[in-house]
């Protein structure tokens, strides 16, 4: 299998890696770079556990090739907090008990961040549709939606 060399930016830092041509970005993040915060729930784009931001858009990193990251900007759950300060979404997820097992949480946080970046005041329905690509089997989504609502309010206060 031939390998390619890739230079990219991950959570603001310049990163270079070698990967096989058919290797997914998710595998690169997890297996080559040790960024195991992004999870694999299906590898077919159906669960959203692997969600990352690629140039400001949410993508399923299991559907993106590692090679495609060349020159792009990638943000993962590991880059959400600023230093030792949690992002309001992270805080609200904790406060609202929006996680039970927590395996879906990284994907939800990334997807919710993307939503709030483009729509600071989403309705409940907008939140539900924006998160419809992320599966959670534990919570029934109620507390996740409430956490996102509360984080949005917090962020609007600035």
């Amino acid at each position, binding site marked *: 299998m031939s390998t390619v060399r890739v230079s990219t930016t991950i959570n603001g830092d310049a990163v270079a890696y070698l990967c096989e041509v058919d290797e997914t970005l998710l595998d690169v993040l997890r297996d080559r770079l040790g960024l195991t915060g992004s999870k694999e729930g299906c590898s077919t784009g159906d669960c959203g556990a692997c969600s990352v931001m690629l140039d400001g858009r949410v993508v399923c990193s299991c559907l993106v090739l590692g090679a495609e990251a060349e020159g792009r900007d990638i943000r993962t759950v590991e880059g959400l*907090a600023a230093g030792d300060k949690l992002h309001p979404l992270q805080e609200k997820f904790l406060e609202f008990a929006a996680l039970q097992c927590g395996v879906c949480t990284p994907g939800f946080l990334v997807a919710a961040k993307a939503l709030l970046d483009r729509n600071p005041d989403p309705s409940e329905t907008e939140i539900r549709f924006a998160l419809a690509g992320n599966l959670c089997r534990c919570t029934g989504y109620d*507390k996740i939606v409430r956490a996102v609502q509360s984080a949005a309010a917090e962020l609007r206060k600035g």
Partner: protein
Amino acid sequence: MPLDSNIDPATHKFNLVGTRPLRPDGVDKVTGRAKFGADANAPGMLVGKILRSPHPHARIRSINTAKAAKLPGVKAIVTAADFKEGKRALRDVLCNVMARGKALYDGHAVAAVAATSASVARKALKLIQVDYEILPHVTDVDEAMKPGAPLLHDDMITAHVDPAPKKPSNVAARCEFGHGDPEVGFKQADVVIERSFRTEATHQGYIEPHACLASMGMDGQGELWVCTQGHYMVRNTCAALLGMDVSKLRVTASEIGGGFGGKTTVFIEPVALALSRKAGKPVKIVMSREEVFRASGPTSSSSMDVKIGVTKAGRITGALAEIRMQGGAFAGAPVELGAMSAFACYDLEHVKSVGWDVVTNRPKQAAYRAPGAPMVAFAVESVLDELARKIGMDPIELRLKNAAKEGTQSSYGPKYNRIGLRQCLEATRNHPHYTAPLGPNEGRGVAAGFWFNFGGQTCVSLNINIDGTVALAVGTPDIGGSRASMCMIAAEELGIPYDKVRAIVADTSSLGYNDISEGSRVTFSTGLATIQAARDAIGKLCARAAKTWGISPEAVVWENGHAKPSSPNAGDFAPLSLADIAKKAGNTGGPIAGHFEVNADGAGVSFAIHLADAAVDPETGRVQIKRYTVIQDAGKAVHPSYVEGQFQGGAVQGIGWALNEEYVYGKDGRLQNAGFLDYRIPVASDLPMIDTVIVEVPNPGHPYGVRGVGETSIVPPLAAIANAVSAAADVRLTELPMSPPRVLKAIDGKAAGKARR
């Protein structure tokens, strides 16, 4: 806090129990630091992959691994021959882990390889040649019971049938529960309704696939990192299958990304260990989602007949259920539990339920949240709903008139202790949801549910640190926030702040045996053991204070985190805090720790009522849940947020089961929808908020009154939604899932029936 007596949970004022502190594992989980099953790596690690049968039923004539073994990068190959056959009890587990002689379902493991990379491992699988003799198969429960059905096991003689059958069949066992004689009861009834129901198999659908990392040393000592609900079970089972001493295998439970009963057995763990032993290197196996669907435990599918009679005044006079469940290729469908729970909500004179445990060419079922109960509740509560309509009685009223209470002889045998069904029913009737107006094409459904809840073997260790903080080691994997609850309980007992206690899930070599986190047992039994371990430590703390003061230990009491002389007569000493005593521990007798080992029994049954509003689109048959409320008895909610979370999660899994989720088998016996795209679990946009009401009727078997809460919440939804849909569509739905084509068919059938009339 008294040291040895139970408190009265109804009147006791708790400091922490009942509050909602942040969970100790929370920050790791929102920052991506938490390590789940697939997140561990080891130097020199190989990748393990499993070859699976494409046939639902086939004799394995031979397996040729020679070509695969020669592929560069392949380090080990294992088949059934690499495992010890061992005791009978383990035979089925082993046969499921690796097919022996026959492949019994599409997805059944037949061989495995370990290689230097995933791509090499995949190539190697393609080079393994398996010579199959394809046999006829059966995947439907009713078909499998017919004489002449393809036979899975030549030696399966139906158990508990007198006289014992002479010939083998696919029926593993019969069971029966009840008292009185339903036929007598039906004669006393004004209205009797009998109906048949069917439910399809569903999968637990945890988002984290099974994953483990095994490492066997040349000295025969092994380590295993795995996402499981029970790492001690994994240790004991794997040790037996690999012929190892239990003490030589150390198993660590990773963070677990959902289980719901599906991670209470072994699948890949013994395989990874066997590969690692052969290769002399660590081996990691992670199931793909397709493998999770094809080869890990779905629940049973069922076919049921229910007959219930009532008087016009709403008294149930007789109840009868016949339940057939297929549990995949091996005996063990949860039909006993289903039959026992069938009528458990009601106080009945004449009741009987009969169950049949059937095998088919499907993956071996694994427990799924209140195993067996939801489908049976679907059938029973549907018939009750219909009866209420027939006699013109409010459905809650009908249930209240027949609700079991303390002293009622349950349909499965014993008399009930203190229970909270009545309180749940009353809370439902008083809830604004119950009387809220409905929109067009909407219907409201209500249903009751019951679950046993379990205790089990539990061991807890609590160490007092030098600075007065506490390290709590439990042995039950945290599947829903239990570390938070355990910290709360320990802090409550010790009288110290919540954040001074840190709980971990210990590995199998650090703490004594613990049963699996299953049966809604963790808050109950690990909680009970934590209370007792804390009380054990308090006894020792008091003894140290007594020593310091030179008085008798009996003259010391523990109050609000301090040792104090019990009365002025005992002496006049300033109270010593936990931290004071901890600091001096090295000079007063050494480390201070509390321990408790127990086989916890007395978990206390629980009941729930669910209320669902469903809108049915008459054109497409699509069902939408408009409003949903869960009312459940928790005994005592330790951390209400996580109790609500259990209620909501169970309800939504039930919504999926009721409306969308099903295993679809083709004529070829292959699973047609082994992925989240075609096996559709509910997403955020499918749902409304899920309202919850926590009812607290203390469990007399627990010092704080705690009852298990994790499972009951999946029992009523199938029926509650079926009742709502039936009301909205004005036709009785008797098959799950109520997917648009099924609902449309029922609506069309009703229209056709009317046209004929």
